[in-house]
């Protein structure tokens, strides 16, 4: 099977004054892959991701996301990706349905498309009973699932998730990962930024950033074997402590 890449990054750097936040990172992410992008606070994850989603210009290097160049086609990138962060909330004072309609509109879907998608989505998430309730009144786990689905409304090639399951209960967290697996299985690439190492365990491959550089990149299993430890948490500790 030929591997198709949807993210290609080569020697990408970002410099702020005399501080190099991202230092010549290179990696590729395949179609339908769940890729974990890990690092401690301040390691450069967020800066790197901002370049990938087209909201920050690199200082040097190349990157293509969903087939588009980060320098020249940043606007096309934005149309072809979805983004969900733990902090990014839907509008608490809009209902479930209103949120879907609003974001569908933002993503440029037609009224008919929005209507159809809203019905499918509400049904799939089992939100029929609360479709007309304000999002603010829903439990955190439901909000996160809804937020994930909304980020997929425009059928993006890649979805970026920032610490998607922090704080939720273990069962909801697993339901969330099942949604992620399902999404990846349909060919959507899932790019997970996190410093929760248990989230890393679920990814197909992970990269670990330390001080602006990618210090490790492989499957969780191979990384654990390589460092001769039992968990990604221990891999991370070994790398970050040097």
């Amino acid at each position, binding site marked *: 099977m030929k591997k198709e890449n949807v993210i290609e990054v080569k020697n990408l750097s970002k410099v702020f004054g005399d501080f190099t936040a991202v230092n010549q990172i290179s990696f590729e992410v395949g179609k339908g892959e769940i890729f974990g992008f890990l690092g*401690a*606070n*301040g390691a450069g994850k967020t800066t790197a991701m901002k370049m990938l989603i087209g909201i920050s210009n690199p200082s040097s290097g190349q990157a293509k996301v969903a087939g588009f160049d980060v320098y020249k086609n940043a606007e096309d990138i934005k149309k072809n990706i979805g983004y969900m962060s733990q902090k990014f909330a839907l509008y608490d004072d809009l209902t479930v349905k209103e949120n879907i309609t609003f974001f569908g509109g933002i993503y440029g879907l037609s009224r008919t498309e929005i209507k159809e998608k809203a019905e499918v989505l509400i049904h799939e998430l089992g939100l029929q009973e609360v479709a007309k309730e304000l999002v603010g009144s829903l439990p955190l786990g439901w909000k996160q699932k809804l937020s994930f689905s909304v980020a997929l409304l425009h059928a993006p090639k890649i979805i970026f998730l920032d610490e998607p399951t922090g*704080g939720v*209960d273990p069962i909801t967290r697993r339901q969330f*990962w099942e949604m992620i*697996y399902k999404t990846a299985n349909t060919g959507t690439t899932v790019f997970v930024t996190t410093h929760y190492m248990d989230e890393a365990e679920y990814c197909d491959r992970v990269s670990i950033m330390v001080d602006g550089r990618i210090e490790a990149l492989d*499957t969780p299993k191979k990384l654990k074997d390589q460092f001769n430890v039992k968990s990604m948490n221990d891999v991370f500790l070994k790398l970050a402590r040097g």
Partner: protein
Amino acid sequence: MSITVQHISKSFGTVKALKDVSFEVKEGELFGLIGPDGAGKTTLFRVLTTLYLADEGAASVAGFDVVKDYKDIRQNVGYMPGKFSLYQDLTVAENLEFFATIFGTTIAENYDLIKEVYVQIEPFKNRKAGDLSGGMKQKLALSCALIHKPKVLFLDEPTTGVDPVSRKEFWEMLKRLQQKGITILVSTPYMDEAALCDRIALIQDGKILEIDTPEAIVKHYPKTIYDVSADNMYLLIESLKAYAYNYSVFPFGEFVHYSDSRDSFRLEELKGYLETKGLQEITIDIAETTIEDTFMELAR
């Protein structure tokens, strides 16, 4: 007992935040309150630190009743809230000075207790608290919570949003504080931190699910759990869920944790079934049961 909680309930409007919660923490114990967001952890902390009045039940901390003796409790406990609550526009040193003065003591008097934590942020003592990194804020907050030498320390999700390296350091610090005789009640949503406590209470939706040592809680799991993996995770989960004999199916990192409802379970039979579903590279091995497995079992 350092902390006793008896049948505490607390509601906010129609939301029952705590439902008949009871437990005890021994003197010098490191006790963990483990549960997700919204479980009621913060409400419980606020009842015990005399910031909320419970609707029902009784509680005492360091021998003082949370209602009658609230002033004594405030003198004798340290509380580090989940949200960073120091003065952002005061410097590191000023914040510490402030809290020492409020409690009628000085930094010098209790420097021994905070030394280990504080030396790590002392180089930045003239920096405003608001300009500190997450890990440094956490260390300052802990220093301030300790400056009056409390008997009991309440730490509400001290490691949330903190990277693994800082988390590990923080827990090492807690262990050393415990050795100095301080009773510690700490809450966390991270199941892996449960193993670092002497005893834990699992809490969800305002109810305590179980209280015991981490080792004992894991042993209570009623089934043998298997690590199952195959070449397609999504198909694997769907197939296991459709298997008539499954007792539980939960994705667990690179594996799926599977337990079977029958007493006589044959690996080969499950493997054969998964093969008929078109899965390849199937592995099935006995897994190590974790706190999370138990939590999910109890929360079902």
